[in-house]
């Protein structure tokens, strides 16, 4: 069974600071997704990482993927209040033999950026 673990689950940080959210997963996969969810809202796609060493950046967020370590990181640079949300990583379970293209999600990291 594919397991996806995120840490930390809760993160409170001051504006202007940097921090990294980690996403570990338990089986071979080179398809990893990061989503953002605002309170009471649905999920918004942030990044799609498709190969070992993939790095993508959008504004103050940068995501990377190390398939050998089964680790993805979401790095926040100079945080601003607008980044406050819950961030989920999700792994495509296909390669683990799940048989369909379901995504297995981590529990999410609730980020609060304090002005």
């Amino acid at each position, binding site marked *: 069974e594919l397991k*996806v673990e995120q840490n930390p689950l809760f993160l409170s940080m001051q504006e202007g600071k940097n921090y990294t959210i980690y996403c570990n997963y338990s089986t071979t996969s080179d*398809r990893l*997704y990061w*989503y953002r969810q605002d309170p009471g*809202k*649905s*999920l*918004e*796609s942030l990044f*799609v990482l*498709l190969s070992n060493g993939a790095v993508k950046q959008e504004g103050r967020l940068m995501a990377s993927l190390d398939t050998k370590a089964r680790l993805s990181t979401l790095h926040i640079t100079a945080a601003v209040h607008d980044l406050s949300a819950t961030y*989920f990583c*999700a792994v*495509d379970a*296909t390669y683990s033999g*799940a*048989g*369909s*293209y*379901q*995504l*297995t*999600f*981590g*529990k*999410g990291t609730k980020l609060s950026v304090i002005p």
Partner: protein
Amino acid sequence: GAGVSQSPSNKVTEKGKDVELRCDPISGHTALYWYRQRLGQGLEFLIYFQGNSAPDKSGLPSDRFSAERTGESVSTLTIQRTQQEDSAVYLCASSGSGLAPYNEQFFGPGTRLTVL
């Protein structure tokens, strides 16, 4: 274009009643997924439809849960004899094709189900 839509946005029901939740995927998307999100948790996969293939029902938690999809369009998720533990947000997602190089899923706004 239009995104994934779901209805109703909120549903309050009494324990033991049946409920139907609806999802309209993005036009042209062949794959459709249902997920459940309990309060403060990540998403749990429920069921997957891909074209005319048999659906993957491996995530359905009990035989009280069922889902149908008409061709490559609307899907309904039915929960019979609802229980309080069914209270959650039910999210629908669609993607271009399960056979695509990757499978970016686009999510609807969800239906918040509360079972009293």
